[in-house]
């Protein structure tokens, strides 16, 4: 259709930035929340991403598979924010390797003890580890998909995932007895 319109010299009406982003905004916020661990920082991260994408509209409109591309942009913004915070120890007393105090706000959504336990444990991970756990174990992205999104070799991802899981299993109270095991 667009080819026909183009052939006839009729310019197809472009979707607005708002219309392009609207279907994805909820999912982006969800992942941003899982990265940062609280609503305030998630909104900041999302706002930052939207400002960045707004300047990349021409590129944005050319992307065929928008969801993974947006995930990639969000991941890069998260790493960027993490790195900037890490380089400003005067403002935030941040450990070199961890983002422990980077996301310290507590909001109403974390009143649930189990969630708080998980988010606290995730705060102890490095940014890359946190991202791989968020996208793989929570959001169900496969490792090959993550390799594209995070621009990281599979081996590195597997290693990060293994270390992150080991750290999380230490900090999260896991009760195998709760499992409904019928037989092996």
């Amino acid at each position, binding site marked *: 259709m667009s080819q026909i319109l183009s052939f006839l010299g009729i310019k197809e*009406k*472009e979707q*607005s*930035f*708002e219309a392009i*982003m*609207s279907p994805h*905004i*909820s999912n982006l*916020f*969800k992942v941003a*929340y*899982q990265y940062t661990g609280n*609503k305030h920082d998630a*909104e900041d991260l*999302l*706002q930052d991403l*939207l*400002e*960045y994408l*707004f*300047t*990349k*509209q*021409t*590129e944005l409109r050319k992307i065929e598979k928008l969801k993974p591309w947006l995930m*990639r942009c969000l991941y*890069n*913004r998260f*790493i*960027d924010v993490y*790195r*900037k915070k890490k*380089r*400003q120890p005067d403002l935030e007393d941040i450990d070199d390797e961890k983002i422990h105090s980077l996301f310290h706000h507590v909001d109403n*959504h974390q009143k*649930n003890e*189990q*969630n708080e336990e*998980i988010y606290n444990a995730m705060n102890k991970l490095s940014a890359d580890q946190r991202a791989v*756990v968020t996208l793989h*174990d*929570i959001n*169900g992205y496969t490792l090959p998909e993550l390799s594209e999104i995070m*621009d990281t070799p599979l081996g590195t991802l597997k290693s990060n995932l*293994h270390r992150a*899981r080991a750290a*999380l*299993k230490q900090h*999260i109270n*896991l*009760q*195998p007895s*709760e*499992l*409904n*095991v*019928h*037989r*092996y």
Partner: protein
Amino acid sequence: MNCKRVNNTIEALTLANITTYLEGGNDDNSELKTHIETCTQCKKTLHEHHAYLNKMSNIHTPEFSKNDAKVMLSKFSHTADNNAVNVNIHNKPAKNDSSFFQGFIAASVLALSVFGAWNVFNNTDVPAPLVVQNNITVPEYITTEVVLVINAPEDMFDADLNIVLPQQVALEGYDDLQELNWAVDLKAGANTLSLPIRVNKHHAINQPLSIMAKLYHYAEEREFEIKIDVEKIQSEQKNSAYLNLVPKNNITRV
């Protein structure tokens, strides 16, 4: 099948796989099944992993309300003409099609030169001591000014410049500072930054010295190694010396 291999297999299983397996719905992997039936440790590992994945999949994430989404996106509303923007993002201006790095690699030539005189603090500059102490070595320093000239292909706002000095080099007036960070707004074209530095001549002689510089912009970073040849500086005229800039590494994250 040994425990290590079983652990690797367990690690690769998804929550659905493990649940199906534990509920007896999957008899495909008989080797795994046989091992887990007989190995207490691996059985425990499987249960733990299942509990972990179960917990992670049930993590609560608040919904972004439609109203919040609308408010946030409304800041970016604009007409069909992409240039008609009614959002204040002046600190991060719109860019053209080409990515930052394509342009940056092509056009960025970081030239470094040294201006101004360098002075050797020798005994003539030091006030005459009241007591002659032959065994005290007077430190000798070379002071000079390093001027970084960064040619940016386009306006690069909110970039971060990080400079790490070697031990033998200090920023004049800041002896203890080995790492420096600046938030810089680079304009398209040449951008200059002057750094008055002091090189300890005793420790620097016959040693390769490098100043490491990193430029961060959005998710990309560019690293440079600025080599300082002390002997060359000394051999040159006192008011003209040149340092070589060698791009060392280019780390790209799209």
